[in-house]
């Protein structure tokens, strides 16, 4: 570390290591090295200190504003787009907004559906579960093949649809985008398996094309009380499992 001697106004000479080190660092940070002036010039020294002080204050304010903006907007964005335990309930990979479409919905739910531009049925008579990950929590992607397996669901009516991550239907030559309680082929035991794959598969096949990230939506119209998370502990077992089979 270099130390510089500075002439004080009263003529006394002393070493001021700490001030000098701070000055040096601030110049290095601010890129003002070119403004380095003769050290014995007191006026310029004061100007330098003033500039440094102003710069420090401004940077503190900017950091404060930045933290507030990132914290405030970021937390709001997360709560509106992904939800939390306050507004959603997650069952395995399936996530449902608990007060979807209701007049007494919380602000996060209202903002979520206003932003997405969806007009779903109210959670008073329907449940809409969305899965964007498989059972292992890995994002669904059209480059992989998935198996959605479950029992015939205990509801007035239900459907399973596949979309890209923006909620658009995935174009395919088979014109196949969903299976419902009426159109699905159940196995003799009363259960079903839906295969999400790019290429044709036997049985209940939903094409995923080259959509990229996927979202699978399960609609239950008037689900039985078994799906009420407040009354049933093991609701997750009632919903179909989303398992990865293979990836390209």
């Amino acid at each position, binding site marked *: *570390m270099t130390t510089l001697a500075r002439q004080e106004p009263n003529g006394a000479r002393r070493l001021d290591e700490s001030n000098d*080190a701070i000055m040096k660092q601030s110049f290095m940070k601010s890129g003002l090295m070119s403004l380095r002036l003769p050290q014995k010039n007191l006026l310029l020294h004061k100007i330098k200190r003033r500039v440094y002080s102003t710069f420090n204050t401004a940077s503190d304010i900017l950091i*404060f504003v930045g*933290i*507030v*903006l990132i*914290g*405030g*907007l970021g*937390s*709001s*964005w997360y*709560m*509106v787009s992904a939800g939390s335990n306050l507004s959603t309930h997650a069952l395995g990979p399936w996530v449902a907004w608990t007060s979807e*479409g*209701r*007049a007494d*919905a919380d*602000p*996060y739910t*209202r*903002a979520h*559906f*206003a*932003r*997405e*531009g*969806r*007009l*779903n*049925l*109210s959670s*008073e*008579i*329907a449940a809409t579960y*969305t899965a964007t990950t498989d059972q292992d929590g890995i994002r669904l992607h059209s480059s992989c093949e998935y198996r959605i397996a479950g029992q015939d669901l205990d509801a*007035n*009516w239900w*459907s399973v*649809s596949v*979309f890209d991550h*923006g*909620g*658009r*239907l*995935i*174009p395919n030559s088979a*014109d196949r*985008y*969903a*299976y*419902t*309680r*009426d*159109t699905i082929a159940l196995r003799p035991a009363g259960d079903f398996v839906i295969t999400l794959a790019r290429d044709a598969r036997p049985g209940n096949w939903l094409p995923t094309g080259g959509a990229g990230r996927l*979202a699978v*939506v399960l*609609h239950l*119209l*008037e689900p039985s009380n078994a799906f009420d998370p407040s009354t049933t502990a093991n609701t997750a077992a009632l919903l179909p499992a989303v398992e990865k089979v293979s990836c390209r």
Partner: protein
Amino acid sequence: MISRRPTRQDGIALLTWPLKKWRIIAAALTCIGILHIGTTLAVSNIVRSTAIDRLKTDLPVNQMRYLPAITPDNQKLPFMGSDTLYAMCRFDSSATPVQLSAYLPGSGWSLAIHAHNGVSLYTAAGQEDLPIRLNLKLVPSTTRFSGLTPEALGVISRQVKQQIVESRNGIAIIRAPDRGHAYRQKTEIDIEKSTCYPIER
């Protein structure tokens, strides 16, 4: 580059920093909270177009319109599935009440009335082998006198139920399960039995 090993004093300084700067931290947390609440509440109002705005162009006012089967080319809203056939009525009850008649012949059928902001005002679901006919009168929630209700006039109607909607405009949606090509004609006939029209005074 000046570097040295961190000392015990550095650790203590780091730990006591929040105590020294508690005013700044409290101010930051308060500002974050205010911004979080403000942004969340504002999102509903600042979205460029609501779901109903997007449907406006295809829906005449106070008329039931049956939409063709949903495909990637005519999907109006995100996550609007092809598992369902839709009939919609964009109502505006500011000038005159609107009569809505919905026919729900079986399971999978439903009626939902949404306010302009997307909030669901009324929902009903069809039942297996139990056709339901719902007759609703949509009137705005307002202090303006809009005539006596049938009940006030002494007319008891078992057919028409008055439903007050919180906004003057919104959308009524009949959803019918699409059971495939073989059943589509039957479903279309049933879905077209639902009507929506202004009531002349």
